[in-house]
């Protein structure tokens, strides 16, 4: 799947016969930079069946939010197109959100990896990690600490630990750096997919992925995913507080 241009995305959304979700938000606006911002409450307000712009096979997810719980559909093609992860032979995907676990595991499978999924019982997850002799880990800040006893007991470091979240307490993550050759931070939301990545640092600078067009507006990340998603993400207020570094990357705040 070749990345879309922002202009293509906007035109497709305006012309779509499948949904008028964006037309109802944008009105007559057609110039990308003048498009009104879309927010989580807009997604929660409109059922998935009314904001589906493409019918591609994939995994539908329940996304909880303070604005109301809603569905998002992650099609296999766009899952495959997102270049956020590290390919390894035996990854463990261990995330608090079961839908994110399934989607990230599907990403692994699309890349020829055979992932094992963690379970919410931490003892079971540690057992599975050891049994499968995982070589990389995809986790979030809540699930990672539960695997500490397993990680500390390994002889060799993992190829990579990828921590996925909309925010990071880097001080709490620094002790985990010794458990992997690389510890990467991936900024992401369930409804948008991966946004940007950074190596673990005390103040990491996040570089947007090629498919992510990132703006900073009123101190928050506004995202356009240059992918033909089932519900396109176009000028979406992620709620993530950040500042631009002036060179295309972002630094999280708060």
């Amino acid at each position: 799947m070749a990345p879309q241009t922002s202009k293509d995305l906007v035109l497709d959304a305006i012309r779509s016969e499948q949904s008028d979700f964006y037309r109802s938000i944008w009105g007559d606006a057609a110039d990308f930079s003048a498009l009104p911002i879309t927010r989580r409450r807009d997604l929660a307000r409109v059922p998935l069946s009314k904001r589906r712009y493409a019918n591609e096979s994939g995994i539908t997810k329940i996304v909880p939010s303070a604005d109301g719980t809603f569905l998002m559909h992650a099609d296999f093609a766009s899952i495959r197109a997102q270049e956020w992860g590290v390919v390894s032979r035996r990854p463990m995907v261990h995330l608090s959100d079961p839908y994110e676990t399934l989607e990230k595991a599907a990403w692994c499978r699309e890349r020829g990896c055979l992932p094992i999924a963690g379970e919410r019982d931490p003892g079971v997850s540690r057992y599975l990690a050891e049994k499968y002799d995982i070589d990389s880990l995809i986790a979030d800040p809540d699930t990672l600490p539960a695997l500490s006893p397993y990680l500390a007991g390994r002889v060799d470091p993992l190829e990579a630990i990828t921590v996925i979240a909309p925010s990071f307490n880097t001080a709490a993550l620094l002790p985990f750096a010794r458990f992997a050759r690389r510890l990467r931070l991936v900024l992401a939301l369930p409804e948008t997919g991966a946004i940007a990545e950074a190596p673990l640092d005390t103040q990491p600078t996040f570089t947007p992925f090629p498919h992510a067009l990132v703006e900073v507006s009123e101190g928050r990340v506004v995202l356009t995913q240059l992918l033909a998603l089932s519900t396109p993400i176009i000028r979406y207020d992620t709620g993530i507080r950040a500042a631009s570094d002036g060179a295309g990357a972002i630094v999280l705040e708060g």
Partner: protein
Amino acid sequence: MLERNELSALLDETLARAKREPLADILSHGIGVTSGTSGRPLLVSVRKYFAHSAELTGGPERAICLRSSMSTALSYVAFTELRARAHYAAMLYIDPAALSKDVGALIEDFDPDELCGFPHAVANLAGVLSAEARGRIGSIELAGEGLPAAIATRIRESFPNAAIRMIYTASEISGIGRSCPHLPPNTYHPFPGVTVEVFEPDADGEGELLISKMISFGIAVRQYRIGDFGKRIEGTCACGERDTFEVLGRNGRDYIKLAGALLRRELFDRAAADCADVLDDYRAEASLVHTPRGDRGKITLRVYRAGGPPAGAMERIRDAFGSVFVTPSRRLNEVIESGAFEPIEILESETPFPPEIKVAKIVSRID
């Protein structure tokens, strides 16, 4: 006969081979993890999805997966990928313990035409869906536990347009058998390449089931003692199949699947040990309570302490047993809070429990 620990060695070989040789066809493979009903430690293996994958291609497009464990849910991702090679396919995973009217609204937005999961979860799902949504379900696949008559009736009545199939499968060795429209519940024809035998059948032909089949990497499993009781059904089925067997139930009454949870004696014993200063012995009974909102699990705990339990004992006992993990991710208190289970009923026994040759600490009172 192949016992569980011997099977474990074969399954470990699948992991070792996958480590040595990259799999050529990832999309047809996955990692299987047992739930604990067959014992501990959990068995982990590389599985090839072939046994009943043909059943899943064609037809339904939007499947709801109602299973507890992530490894099982991930297998449905693989099945969706398989279907997607032929036609549009989507799946929505639903935690059976998290059914509510709000989730029902989301499910209706998804507009499923197929339900896959535990029988009790499928039956409970009916309580959160409109009649219109239930009428659009054309296909139901049941697996993971036996099918009591009352739940079978409820499913048939709730989803009048659904073709219902049951799959007899075990996480450690994948698919074993499938139902057919001419067979009663819990009765199956073995999948091609699968042999089902009955070990030392009694006068009624009932005995322990032994399963033989090939698993991934061409590894042969011969006469695996799966832990279920059953019997062969003689004669030719109306569908033409001559090989039929019935699954009667789980060996070891102290492993009970109920309302999406697994009640394990070893964990109940551990809870009892945690409050050994206020409790001498216990017995637990698991049952299903039928409510307008769906079936709920119930545990009745009878407790005995010489001289009577001291003040505050009941709360300690309730806390200890409520902390037992009943799914890989949830404790009993959590599934009670979610509404999948009634609160624990604790009754005091004034006399010690009668001695038995084989003590069953947890028994099922489910029909």
